[in-house]
């Protein structure tokens, strides 16, 4: 489904991703772990279409198309979803507006009729129940004045409503208490299916106790330095990231875990 080949990305002239290779197939859950500054979020945002990053080499194919050539909205319509690490507040645009605009643009793209008001609200309410969210939340401005946990839940709500083919979750677990983490994990697991792929970008292995990954990749200084099964995450939990960075053969500076 997703094939990242030797992807190199710089931000304001500074190389952040220095040759990422990653293949994700339908039905798989991949965890991308790594210390702060390793490039995890840059990878997630590049896949969603953030334009302030410059791709300096390599490429990304998604469902046999050049993902990087697609506008962010086009990626979304083709089934890519990014749960933002820092969900953006959009004052004056209510959640219900955004969800309606989003779902109808996706449906239109797929040649489906737009949902009528009753179908739409029915769908949103069902997903809100899954996410333990109060009804009034959908009439509030997108993320405005939301607590950290509410913002993350709201991301997963959007994901649940939009039912993407490829979901990329950028540190969705950070800053969540254990109850909120369970709710978010429930939302993610509800989406798991043989047709979908999920990429979990995370700093900690904690969420992986609730969403079991098929593969774990460790990112360090812009490269994937180790890939392995779920157990790799547990090892990281015990040993930290330092040992991998030291082991990274092409790392010019050695360990620099912050």
């Amino acid at each position, binding site marked *: 489904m997703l094939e990242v080949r030797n992807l190199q990305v710089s931000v304001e002239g500074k190389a952040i991703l220095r040759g990422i290779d990653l293949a994700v197939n339908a039905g798989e859950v991949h965890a991308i772990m790594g210390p702060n500054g390793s490039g995890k979020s840059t990878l997630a945002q590049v896949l969603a279409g953030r334009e302030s990053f410059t791709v300096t080499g390599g490429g990304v194919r998604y469902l046999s198309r050049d993902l990087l050539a697609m506008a962010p909205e086009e990626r979304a319509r083709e089934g890519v979803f990014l749960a933002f690490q820092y969900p953006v507040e959009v004052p004056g645009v209510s959640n219900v*507006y955004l969800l309606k605009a989003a779902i109808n643009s996706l449906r239109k793209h797929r040649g489906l009729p737009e949902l009528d008001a009753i179908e739409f609200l029915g769908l949103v309410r069902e997903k809100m129940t899954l996410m333990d969210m109060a009804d009034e939340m959908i009439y509030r401005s997108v993320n405005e004045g939301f607590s950290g946990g509410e913002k993350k839940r709201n991301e997963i709500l959007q994901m649940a409503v939009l039912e993407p083919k490829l979901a990329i979750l950028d540190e969705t677990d950070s800053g969540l208490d254990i109850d909120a983490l369970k709710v978010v994990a429930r939302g993610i697991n509800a989406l798991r299916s043989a047709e979908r792929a999920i990429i979990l970008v995370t700093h900690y292995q904690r969420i992986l106790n609730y969403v079991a990954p098929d593969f774990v990749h460790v990112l360090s200084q812009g490269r994937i330095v180790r890939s392995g099964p779920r157990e790799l995450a547990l090892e990281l939990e015990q040993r930290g990231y330092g040992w991998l960075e030291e082991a990274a053969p092409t790392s010019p500076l050695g360990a620099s875990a912050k």
Partner: protein
Amino acid sequence: MTSTDRILADFIRAAPLLPGAGVAWLTRARQAGLERFAQTGFPTPRDEEWKYTSVASIEKRSFTPLPNGAHAAPPELNALAFPHFPGHCVVFVNGRYSPALSAVGLLPPGVALESVADTLERAPDALEPLFAADNRETVFGALNTAFMADGLYLYLPRATTIEEPIHLYFVVTNKNAAIHPRNVIVAEEGARATVVEHYAGTHGVAYLTNAVTRIFAGEQAAVDHYKLQQEALQAFHVAGIHATQDRGSRLWSHSISLGAEIARNDISTTFDAEGCEATLNGLYLARGRQHVDHHTRIDHAKPGGTSREYYRGLLDGASRGVFNGKVIVHPQAQRTDARQLNHNLLLSKDAEVDTKPQLEIYADDVKCTHGATVGQLDDAQLLYLRSRGVDEAVARSLLVYAFARDVIERIRVGALRSRLEEMLLARLPQGERVRALA
């Protein structure tokens, strides 16, 4: 002939024809207004208060006063498509009251809701104290006193409430006309009313509207005032709205500016007794080469006053916006609570805005804040919406809509609020798509 000479000549010609020509106090007031104008002439950018707004194009256009108004053919009026607002409707065509087009419903006893020109015929003395010179007025205000021909006189006796909004419709169809509307609103103790001033003109016609509205709010009175400026795009609009508030009174002022080539608004209120409240809201939308200027002034002259000011501007094309918000907390105005915010959104690289909050605080026990921003659409918000599948063009329109709606939502006249939402959507490139989300 200088512009001042021309105005003097206009006055000599028009004065005998103006309403109240035989009323001694008014004649004196008109002459005083004219003299004040003659002393300085039109303001220039050297005047601090007119630094960013040049009225040179008004000065050189020789707009001519129409002391008796002018006939307007029905097609011209129909073209302006009067909105049908519930409530009382008072129409002024080319500056003069049109009984045929107006519709005033039943009113509580003792209320006066009439044309100023009629009052000047019938009982001119009632108006004398209400026309006293006001040092908050600009030189355009002085010109208005000299040339004013008509407007609304609204008098609300003690504890009277007019529930339905009073809708004033000022329509200009005459090319090169100078229209000087004068409105006077008096709310005695505990009285309440809502007045909407709506300005419009025939598409493609250049003219000058130079309006003055005076509001006197008695103890515990509540006045909601709205001005919807939708003049023809070739027209010039200058307006002074000056309120004086007594103990515990409340003023809500809203200035919505959409039309005119140049629009200048001077909006002020003075808290003359304790415990007054004022909310000054505004929204200005400009594009092309439009220029829109709001100068506001709140005088906290007595203790315990609360003022809230909330202005937003949306500037596109090569338009220019000016916001100057003065809040003066006088020495005895302890326990003043004043907040002011002005946000501007620039939609093109040629649009410009000058925003200047001016707080002058001479008391110590006060809570005053202000903030002003000038910015473009937020890239992070745009990406967020797009990453959910929303077209870039729709995302832009949605964000612009949200920005302006923040002020529109504060309008408490439902019909006006809906109309403005519609007008806003009609201006947006993807307005239809945004409307479908509601």
